[in-house]
């Protein structure tokens, strides 16, 4: 009988990765890295989804992960386009410079 890994270990890894993503959003000031940290958080949530889907023996969690991936692809495309526009108008992408509503 092989040893099996408890569900809570996967959830712990997911929680740690999510926290590190949140930390990255808070401490980094390069919007590209902030974006990557958001991706890390989405990924941690996906891991929790798949672990729960496995635990309850249903496929719904995996399907939801599929939708999360699609939405995050759309989000990354739009976000990177916004970063490019900001770079064009300000010639820098430091988040501290983005303090005016009018370009």
């Amino acid at each position, binding site marked *: 009988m*092989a*040893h*099996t*890994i*408890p*569900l*809570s*270990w996967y959830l*712990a*890894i997911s*929680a*740690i*990765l999510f*926290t*590190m*993503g*949140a*930390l*990255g959003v*808070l*401490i980094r*000031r*390069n919007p*590209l*890295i902030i974006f*990557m*940290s958001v*991706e*890390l958080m989405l*990924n941690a949530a*996906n*891991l929790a989804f*798949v*672990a729960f*889907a496995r*635990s309850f023996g249903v*496929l719904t969690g*995996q*399907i939801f*992960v*599929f*939708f999360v*991936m*699609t*939405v*995050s*692809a*759309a989000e*990354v*495309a*739009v976000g*990177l*386009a*916004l*970063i*490019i*526009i900001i*770079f064009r108008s300000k010639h820098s*992408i*430091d988040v501290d410079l983005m303090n005016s509503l009018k370009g």
Partner: protein
Amino acid sequence: MNLTLILFIILATVAVASAAGLLISRNTVYAALFLVLNFATVAVFYLLLGAPFIALAQVTIYAGAIMVLFLFVIMLLGSERLPRGQVLPWQRPMAIVLAAVLLAEAGFLLFRRLQLTANLTNPEASINTTESLRTLGMTLFNQYLLPFEVTSVLLLVAMVGVIVLTKKEKGEQG
């Protein structure tokens, strides 16, 4: 100690270390590569959890498409290294305290409140790849057909939006 446990521990270490590398690396390209490594380890976690389709989608969509897009923009903007501006003095300690609180909350919820004792069965015991893919496809295209179609509209909107956003007006100074 069996193989699955050893594999899990190694993967967990690599995942956390690569996330830490993402947080501390100064060079944006290195940060992106650390994130690719993290995505790859999470894909192996998916395989351990018996979700081969999600694992492959993770590799192709996240580690493939999304990170290539990131690297493309990093190269385009030439922002491998940002000059260090003045930093808010309390920003870093405050962020670390907040993150510690978040982690403590998550740990409390996981190990105190939920009392999760369920063990996961071994993937090889119950996963027949072809059969699981078939079930996934049937669920996706029967029960979740409408969300699936809405997703395609979402991607179309994102595509059109990006083109409109980055299009230069005639005569506008780039």
